[in-house]
């Protein structure tokens, strides 16, 4: 174990810092209007990609940096410490990109990976359905094979950035017999196809970062099948584990910037000489820091080429806890007059729901880590 940066890592840190010093997006407020925000965020990811800071550990032949995974952590830390915006093509980077790398053929990887990294093409995921939330395997969207294509029909929900996406990874039922989860395939759907209808869903924060997706006899060419028919479940499980494992790294850095903000806001409001406020913030700090330490330890193995294990569920639980505690404390200290903390608090409650509920994560730990008897 060694936390001190190597000379090479230090050089990389310097490189990121000088890049950041010249980036106008850093520290500036993002536009509130969604379209404008999206434009800024795409430009930002593109600039970072050009500088070599996106997909740094992805294979060089598909546009990645081909460097050791730990370098991406170094980069992410520096970006976040400077308060840089997030990478907007998050679903491509955390979910579909890794699936394409692992399960796609070379043609698919060449076609899709570079524009995921550059944010030229935004990706979304069509996994959940209104009746198939936690119980993903019971999904009803159907894809029927005909000649050289599939005909796809059904509806999806929680499609993040669906209104901006060029491509969607859709889980659909292709086989009707056999066990439920073996009849699912993963299709790459062109969001410009006829029969695709995207409807933004307004969240309780007033934003619309998610959409409903309606698919009505959408034609999907056969070459857009990822891996083989019936492999969809396997891909989804790999992908969701990956998301839980890797999403924690940028997320914890984001939580650290939120914590800084809470401390600054409390200071500005003259609340910081109150020992109770101090302790609340210290407890939030502890939650955020321990999340980082735990994520580092559990992704260590994964970064070195191992599979994402069930411990990604412990990271996920800890992440929801840290986020909810921080948001609730800041909201209590700063009150509902503060729009940022109000929104952050309200939405923080979803952290124990999205990406697999708290209950699902605990089941995974009980089964796969503790090997407890099944219910």
């Amino acid at each position, binding site marked *: *174990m060694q*936390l001190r940066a*190597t000379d090479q890592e230090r050089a990389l840190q310097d490189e990121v810092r000088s890049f950041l010093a010249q980036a106008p997006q850093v520290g500036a407020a993002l536009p509130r209007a969604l379209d404008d925000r999206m434009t800024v965020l795409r430009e930002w990811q593109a600039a970072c990609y050009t500088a070599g800071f996106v997909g740094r550990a992805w294979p060089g032949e598909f546009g990645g940096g081909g460097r050791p995974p*730990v370098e991406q952590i170094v980069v992410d830390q520096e970006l976040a410490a400077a308060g840089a915006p997030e990478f907007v093509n998050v679903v491509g980077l955390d979910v579909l990109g890794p699936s394409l790398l692992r399960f796609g053929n070379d043609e698919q990887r060449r076609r899709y990976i570079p524009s995921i990294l550059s944010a030229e093409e935004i990706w979304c995921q069509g996994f959940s359905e209104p009746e198939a939330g936690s119980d993903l395997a019971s999904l009803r969207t159907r894809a029927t094979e005909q000649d050289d294509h599939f005909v796809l029909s059904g509806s999806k929900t929680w499609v993040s950035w669906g209104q901006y996406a060029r491509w969607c990874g859709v889980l659909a039922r292709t086989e009707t017999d056999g066990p439920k989860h073996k009849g699912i395939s993963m299709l790459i759907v062109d969001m410009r196809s006829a029969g695709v209808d995207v409807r933004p869903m307004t969240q309780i924060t007033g934003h619309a970062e998610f959409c409903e997706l309606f698919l009505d006899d959408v034609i999907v060419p056969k070459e857009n099948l990822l891996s083989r028919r019936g492999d969809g479940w396997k891909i989804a499980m790999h992908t969701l584990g990956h998301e839980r494992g890797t999403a924690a790294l940028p997320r914890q850095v984001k939580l650290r910037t939120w914590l800084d903000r809470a401390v600054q806001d409390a*200071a500005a409001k003259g609340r910081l000489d109150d020992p109770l406020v101090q302790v609340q913030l210290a407890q939030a700090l502890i939650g955020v820091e321990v999340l980082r330490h*735990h994520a580092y*330890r559990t992704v*260590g193995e994964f970064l070195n080429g191992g599979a994402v294990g069930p411990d990604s569920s412990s990271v996920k639980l800890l992440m929801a806890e840290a986020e909810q505690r921080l948001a609730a404390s800041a909201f209590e200290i700063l009150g509902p007059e503060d729009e940022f903390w109000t929104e952050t608090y309200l939405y923080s409650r979803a952290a124990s729901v999205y990406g697999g509920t708290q209950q699902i994560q605990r089941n995974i730990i009980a089964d796969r880590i503790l090997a407890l008897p099944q219910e």
Partner: protein
Amino acid sequence: MDLELTDEQTMLGEALTTLLEREWLPAETAHTATPQQRARLWSALEEFFDAELGAVELCLAARLLGAHLAATPFVGSAALRYIGVPHQERVAIALPATPVEHAAEVDRFAVVGEGTVALVAAADATIEPAASLDIGTPLFTVTADGGELHEVEVARLTAIGALLAAAESVGAAERMLSDARDYAAERRQFGRTIGSYQALRHLLADMYVRSASAWSTVLYAAAALDDELPDAQRTAAITKAYVARAAREVAHGALQVFGGIAFTEEHQAHRFLRRIIVREQQFGDAAHHERELGRALAVSAMERA
């Protein structure tokens, strides 16, 4: 940056496990250890000390000592060597107005002053037994003057001390979790094992999250101390605070899984809880570190403003 244990570190943990199984009692009977058995454990640990050990290695060791309810003046002896005070003896740390552990069986006391420790021979000190919740960590009041003066970084001494104490707690908590898990997998009520009820499955899963993350933060903080990262001492404080609450949460969960039997003297659960509490009290409890961390946050925010 490398986030995994080295092979050497993993092997060291395995070797120490073997050592403890050979030279020490099972946790169930550890509270019956005689002075001879304690002395024998120390001799075995001395050999282990021959290598140059970092905070990561020492914490690996302390965790195992906690899991085995070992009774040994390891924390003080290891902490002193770690901060560079050379000795080959059993040492206990004597902080102002704080009970001193294992005082009756150490060779020297390290009396902590401002920027110094004075190594005082045990024979030159007056010791009085004090109450301790844990028979494996007896406490004493120690009065000692004079001694051989060493300049040290006291904050680094209390940081390593806090991490070793935390690592012992993690070991004890992990053992409680694993005992509770086994009990839940076996004990039947209403025609099912109780571990098949979702309420207990989830309780145990939460205990796992606590104990696993507690161990993560100990390892990170230890590596930060070894690597002399600028925030290493703050990280040690964060770790000590988190582990104190986490270990108790695991312990409380385990008591709930065991049910009534855990509240009888003969059941071993309370012995681990007692170890956890005694370690929690050393080098600052959670409330202490939370206050100090909060104060520091306020000070640095005000300086920035």
